[in-house]
């Protein structure tokens, strides 16, 4: 079959300050093809696509659509050219319905009835399920994403760009999305998907293009390559793609949770009678659709979440239990419990974006020195150690952490939390948004903590990883425990079903 290029990007260069996000990139996007755009964090994938979508304007280079040179100055220009992008963070108005969101900003007469007809036609053509009258605030994450895609198609997009669309979806929802994307491809549309998940690339895409440090490294047909080769291209040198799972050494109960019930400020039940035990020297994975109570569970253990009833005890080496409920992080530390927490919201909770690396290291330790003044030296040394041990890419210790890329931010956070020599390590979505190389660094760090006898509670979203890394997996569904399974014996299918409560367990 003859391939027709929908978009040609030629010699595209874009700098932010002194950083070259894209450097002379050539990229072709073909009609009737799904292209996976790969690269590590900060390799310039999103920047490149944002220039197609009219969000950034390239410093140099040109863009051709249907072999005609074009200038894309705004998202509207992009729409006029049939280019639509679905961003990681949805841009929808909560109080409006799906149909209202879809036609928002379009010129011409407001005809909601005709719009709904057209939306239904689009849905039927590709297999979407959207109720045009449903309000956005009533929708799940996956439904919102569907609205975003329909919005783009409604505006006549022939070229669709999806930035990490599966990060927030369950396996079942991901399958649905992929089916729709294949339908669109078969209809002759050009689709670009940015993702970090190798198995998705292999499953979905026809062709892959790899960026490294802002430069185009190469492209190839997906069927001619494999995860190993693609990863090597992204990183620039061979890497080992194996998550180790050593047998737990001498596991002892460390954290015992009994009948834990938590309500949000609005009175919504977030955790309902949750009980489990986390052992030392073991990784307890926590699986569940996002918003099933993972955040509340970790924050309750860390002393940040008011609890309605139940008990969380920390078991000393000799088995003496100590109640953690009703204590704040400071009094938990004062009890001699060394508990580290890598929260989901890295820059909003774990770190202070505007502070530099050294000052962020200080967050945990600034009280340690007696007297009125802070100790500036040891956090500075710790920052230097974390930078060199974890290979953090940063211009220096004095750089505000918000300027670092996602993977490096996470390394700083994890590095600090591990430096406290914890006995319990809580992590929430530790590799979200991280490229494959950084992810494996994090898995490795977590495994080292396990080997050191730390009780690790690992909340994750990538089931493949949870299954490879965890000794046991606790599955949450709607705030309830739908079961605890052995990580070595269960399957993706089983855990996926338990997440949606269709499966077994005692949900």
């Amino acid at each position, binding site marked *: 079959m003859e391939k027709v290029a929908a978009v040609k990007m030629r010699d595209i260069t874009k*700098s*932010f*300050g*002194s*950083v070259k996000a894209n450097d002379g990139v050539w990229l072709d996007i073909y009609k009737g093809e799904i292209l996976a755009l790969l690269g590590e964090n900060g390799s310039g994938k999103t920047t490149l696509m944002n220039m197609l979508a009219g969000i950034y*304007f390239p*410093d140099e280079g040109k863009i051709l659509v249907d072999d005609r*040179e*074009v*200038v*894309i*100055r705004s998202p509207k*220009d992009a729409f*006029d*050219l049939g280019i639509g992008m679905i961003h990681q963070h949805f841009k929808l108005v909560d109080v409006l319905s799906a149909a209202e969101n879809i036609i928002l900003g379009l010129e011409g007469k407001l005809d909601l009835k005709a719009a709904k007809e057209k939306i239904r036609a689009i849905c039927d053509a590709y297999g979407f399920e959207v109720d045009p009258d449903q309000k956005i605030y009533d929708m799940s994450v996956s439904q919102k994403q569907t609205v975003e895609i329909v919005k783009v198609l409604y505006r006549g997009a022939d070229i669709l760009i999806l930035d990490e669309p599966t990060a927030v979806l369950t396996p079942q929802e991901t399958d649905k999305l992929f089916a729709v994307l294949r339908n669109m491809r078969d209809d002759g549309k050009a689709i670009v998907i940015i993702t970090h998940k190798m198995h998705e690339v292999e499953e979905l895409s026809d062709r892959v293009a790899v960026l490294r440090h802002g430069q185009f490294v190469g492209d190839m047909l997906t069927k001619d390559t494999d995860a190993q080769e693609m990863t090597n291209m992204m990183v620039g040198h061979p890497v080992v793609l194996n998550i180790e799972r050593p047998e737990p050494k001498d596991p002892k109960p460390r954290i015992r949770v009994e009948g834990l019930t938590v309500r949000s400020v609005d009175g919504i039940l977030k955790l309902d009678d949750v009980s489990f035990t986390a052992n030392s020297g073991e990784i307890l994975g926590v699986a569940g659709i996002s918003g099933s109570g993972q955040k509340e569970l970790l924050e309750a253990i*860390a002393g*940040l979440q008011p609890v309605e009833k139940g008990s969380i005890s920390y078991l000393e080496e000799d088995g003496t239990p100590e109640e953690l409920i009703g204590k*704040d*992080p*400071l009094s938990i*530390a004062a009890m001699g419990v060394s508990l580290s*927490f890598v*929260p989901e*919201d890295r820059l*909003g*909770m*774990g*770190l*202070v*974006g*505007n*502070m530099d690396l050294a*000052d962020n290291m*200080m*967050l*945990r330790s*600034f*009280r340690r020195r007696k007297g*009125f*003044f*802070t100790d*500036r030296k040891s956090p500075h040394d710790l920052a230097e150690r974390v930078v060199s041990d974890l290979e953090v890419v940063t211009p220096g210790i004095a750089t505000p952490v918000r300027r670092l890329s996602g993977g490096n931010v996470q390394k700083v956070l994890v590095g600090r939390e591990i430096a406290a020599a914890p006995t319990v390590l809580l992590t929430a979505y530790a590799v979200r948004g991280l490229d494959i190389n950084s992810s494996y660094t994090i898995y490795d760090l977590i495994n080292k903590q396990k080997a050191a006898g730390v009780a690790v509670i690992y909340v994750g979203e990538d089931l493949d990883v949870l299954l490879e890394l965890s000794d046991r997996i606790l599955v949450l569904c709607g705030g309830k425990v739908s079961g605890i399974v052995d990580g070595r014996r269960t399957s993706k299918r089983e855990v996926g079903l338990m997440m949606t409560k269709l499966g077994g367990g005692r949900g």
Partner: protein
Amino acid sequence: MNTRTHTPLFHISKRGQLPWYRAWLIRGIALAVALLLCALVTTVFTGVNPLGVFAAIIRGSFGTARKFWVLLQEMSILLCVALAVTPAFMMRFWNVGGEGQILMGGLATAACMIVFGDKVPNGLLILTMVVASIAAGAIWGAIPAVFKAKWNTNETLFTLMMNYVATQLVAYYCNVWDKKGSGIVGIINPNTHSGWMPGWNSPGGQKYLLNIVVVALLTVGVYIYLRYSKHGYELTVVGESERTARYVGIKVERVVIRTMLLSGGLCGLAGLLLVGSTSHTVSTTIAGGRGFTAVMVSWLAKFNPVMMVLTTFLIVFLQRGAGELSSSFAQINDSFSDILTGIILFFIIGSEFFITYKINFRKAEKEA
């Protein structure tokens, strides 16, 4: 279909870190352009020779030794208030109640002078004034902080409203203390000078040196407090992200109240300097809008106490210059001076945009 193929005339992109001299070059250019525009506006609308105008502005601050010491004295009070509101602003607690906190400090000072004047030894009286004024300002600042910490009330409205309460309190006591019924408190203890703080003669013969020395020490103190103390670190974290603060076990409520005690207390100190050291009387207008001007001084300096010396100078210099202008030229009145001050401030604040961003103009077509 999009048929436009020309690139936009310019697009804006973010700069990297500029070396300090380039940043100051941009600020310098902004000031030069502002002065040029001022000159143009002056000539067009008043016909006065702009060079004369600039000379008058400079004369306002440096014309005589006395004017120079007045400049320093005015700077010291404004800088004191700016230093006071800075910890609160760094904590993202919008304390616009500096005015009221100054007034309460001044009121407490005056009360001590009137009630205890000539009755206790002067040293003890001054000590009482110091404690009372700082405490009064601190309490006035802490009330909105407590409400914010306990019930999450809006501190901007609350501190603003507290200004009016303070003004009315001062007005009430002016009536109580005034024996003649005019509602104006004259110079307190005019004969015995009881409770007058030792002014310390400056070389010009004015008693301004004490204020200047106190505020100079305060500048260093606040700088160290914000930069190197645990308190300073905690309030910065609370300001950047309350959730991070809770996550590392900082007691946010306590930090909010503590910081506002400090902020209000320093405003109270400004009230003490105004009443006890400078004017020896109290009225509803002693703060003179400094509680609000100080907010601008603090922001312009990006909350850096050392930079605040510069921004305070800029503001006071312009104010003094404006005053000199309207008294030197018949064609120029107060409002016109304000226009010139406005132009200069606009350019100086606007120059920060060009320090953060770069404007890329369309390049000439390479091929074609």
